[in-house]
């Protein structure tokens, strides 16, 4: 049961993380300290929020993939013929991820123009990826009929749609950041947004590569 393995790992990971970052052995009833330390993790709340959100999305995709793996062995299954465009799309998404990372570096070094151009490139590549996914849908569509045909095709639609929706969510945030950029916000105020966008883009790239790998090899 892959469900079990993935999720116990995830859940225990969270708990273990707590044991590490916080002293759960403190005897709080005996504490003599004048003002105990807060013990909060020194990180922007937005950053923590994003990491928790990524844990939720990981959980979502792990479950989809577990369902895929379990459904494979049940019946009326035939593998999907991977449209070649998916290779191109993957490269485009890698490019988007690199561009976001460059925007982040540029912002860290105070290079306003560099950050802006990298941001625009990242956004355009992400849109290109989404367009490429739509083309992949069209290529898959006629070759195997959706309805009672291969569930692998249905899984491909669902997984790529869910991934695409998460990317669109990221693009909305990116759009907001770009708007603030264009409106003349200081680079220092945008740094956190750019950092988080980059992290989220890397995460979505990773998710896509795992999904693609599952479709190819599982």
């Amino acid at each position, binding site marked *: *049961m892959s*469900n*079990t393995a993935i*999720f*116990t790992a*995830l*859940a*225990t990971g*969270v*708990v273990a993380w*707590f044991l590490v970052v*916080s*002293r*759960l*052995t*403190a*005897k*709080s*009833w*005996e*504490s*003599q300290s*004048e*003002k*105990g*330390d*807060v*013990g*909060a*993790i020194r*990180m922007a*709340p937005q950053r*923590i*929020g994003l990491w*928790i*959100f990524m*844990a*939720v999305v990981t*959980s*979502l995709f792990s*479950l*989809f993939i577990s*369902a895929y793996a*379990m*459904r494979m062995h*049940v*019946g*009326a*299954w035939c593998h999907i013929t991977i449209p070649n465009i998916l290779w191109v799309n993957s490269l485009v998404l890698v490019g988007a991820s690199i561009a976001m990372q460059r925007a982040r570096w540029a912002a860290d070094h105070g290079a306003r123009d560099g950050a802006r151009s990298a941001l625009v490139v990242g956004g355009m590549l992400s849109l290109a990826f989404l367009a490429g996914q739509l083309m992949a849908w069209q290529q898959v569509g006629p070759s195997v009929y*959706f*309805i*009672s045909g291969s*569930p692998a095709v*249905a*899984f491909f639609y*669902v997984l790529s749609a*869910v991934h695409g929706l998460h990317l669109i969510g990221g693009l909305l945030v990116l759009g907001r950041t770009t708007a603030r950029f264009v409106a003349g916000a200081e680079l220092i105020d945008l740094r956190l947004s750019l950092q988080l966008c980059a992290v989220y883009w890397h995460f979505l790239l990773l998710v896509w590569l795992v999904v693609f790998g599952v479709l190819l090899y599982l």
Partner: protein
Amino acid sequence: MAYVAIADRDAPIHDPHTFFLKYIWSQDHKVIAIQYAIVAISVGLVALVLSGLMRLQLGFPNTFHFIDPNDYYQFITMHGMIMVIYLLTALFLGGFGNYLIPLMCGARDMVFPYMNMLSFWVYLLAVLVLMASFFVPGGPTGAGWTLYPPQAVLTGTPGAGLGIILMLVSLGIFIVAFTMGGLNYVTTVLQARCRGMTLMRMPLSVWGIFMATILGLLAFPALLVSAVMMTLDSTLGTSFFMPAVISMGQKLGHNGGSPLLFQHLFWFFGHPEVYIVALPAFGIVSDLLSTHARKNIFGYRMMVWAILAIGGLSFVVWAHHMYVSGMNPYFGFFFATTTLIIAVPTAIKVYNWVLTLWKGDIHLTVPMMFAIGFIFTFIHGGLTGLFLGNVTVDLPLSDTYFVVAHFHMVMGVSPILVVFGAIYHWFPKITGRMWNVTLGKVHFWMTFLGTYAIYLPMHYLGILGVPRRYYALGNTDFIPDSVHSINASITIAALIVAAAQLVFLYNMITSLRKGEKAPPNPWRATTLEWQTPDTPPHHGNWGPKLPVVYRWAYDYSVPGAKEDFIPQNEPVDPALGAGRDHGKHR
């Protein structure tokens, strides 16, 4: 109104003055909490009425002709789903979580107030979509709250058309709302605690809500996955869950799907869901018992560790709901073992509650009565859980009223008793008014004894083999006449308990207007929410300065202290020492 969660400043970053922005489209966690609670309780009342209708049919079959079998299944389904998700989850996390986390942690608000507000409105949308299913052709789904395919989407099941779609869509929307709220609760606990509030000084209420939120964030995606795939099965004809089926003499287009896969996904969410409801109840009841017994909670660290252990283990017990599903029998062995293991931390908590009461200065206030009532019902429901957790005992009891009695006792009545206790406990802080004590006690005794009158006999019905989910029992050989009399008496008890809730509503509404003015700290409690400068707390909670915490939340009856409680924000007197060491240094 929106505040920065942890800044030492009294001015909100955004301060609207209109009624609409202050009380409707509000970003204040207290207003959002009350909005969540009102919607959850309202929709819970709908579910209560549905259960009354079901009981009328079961207690007096062939009497109420306006209830036909289809209606009955729709009532079952909606009752279950509303109670578990739209009432209990929303009330504990959206309601109490929102209200208590910032106040108990010493923050001015949640860290993402705007998202918190959206969370409520999206939740309301989920409720409205669910309620809309009562008004569409075919009515709401009657698939049972577990929504098992293939029957959930097949013609013949009530609401197999629009009803099931609306249910799945509503669940999807709810999960979005929950995720927005959940991100807030977890991040606020991690980031917005005031100075001195270490994790191990947090009240157990916050611990329970915190861990339940983490469980929800990891487990709700399983429900989302199953809802998405089932929606596609029923609308586009995919075969994720749907096997080849001949329905009404016609072969449907589905082929090869696995209903068992749905069950795995559903219960992978469904079992943690039990603890999403139970952990906040565990936390809150710990605080109620400690406060009203004037004694520190017994084994605080053990309580925290037990919450964490239960949280982790709750992900590896799900298939104990599926012993009769036809899955590999060896799984049964594994899941029976994990199920019995999870009983260990749970039992530790129960012992600690009882030991907290031991030699305590017990004040039998209304919240305390509900808290003690919870210990009874929870032990009761927990023990029958041990029966059902064992495969060989579960097999004959599965799908009988024994199961109905078990889960109502353990995750229906028990959490609801805590909800009531918590409402009575925090009502003075939330509204600034006291309620009528006599009516509160009447409400408690009617509810507590009434629920026993309902569920105790159901165990007996289950052992006789009376099957659950049946619209009417008819004349069946193995069902003696006594079953019919018991069913009638259960129905009468259920109607009395339902009426008792009117006493509660009446008490709350009249107290809101005419109740005695509440002092800031009527229970003489130590936790921060009782130390706010205003009652009810104003926006921003704390006035100009954030509180500073010097001690844990359970300094009750400390030897040598001048009162029998020391608030968390009271500095340590060097002459006296702190906490349990008070008095040693004199």
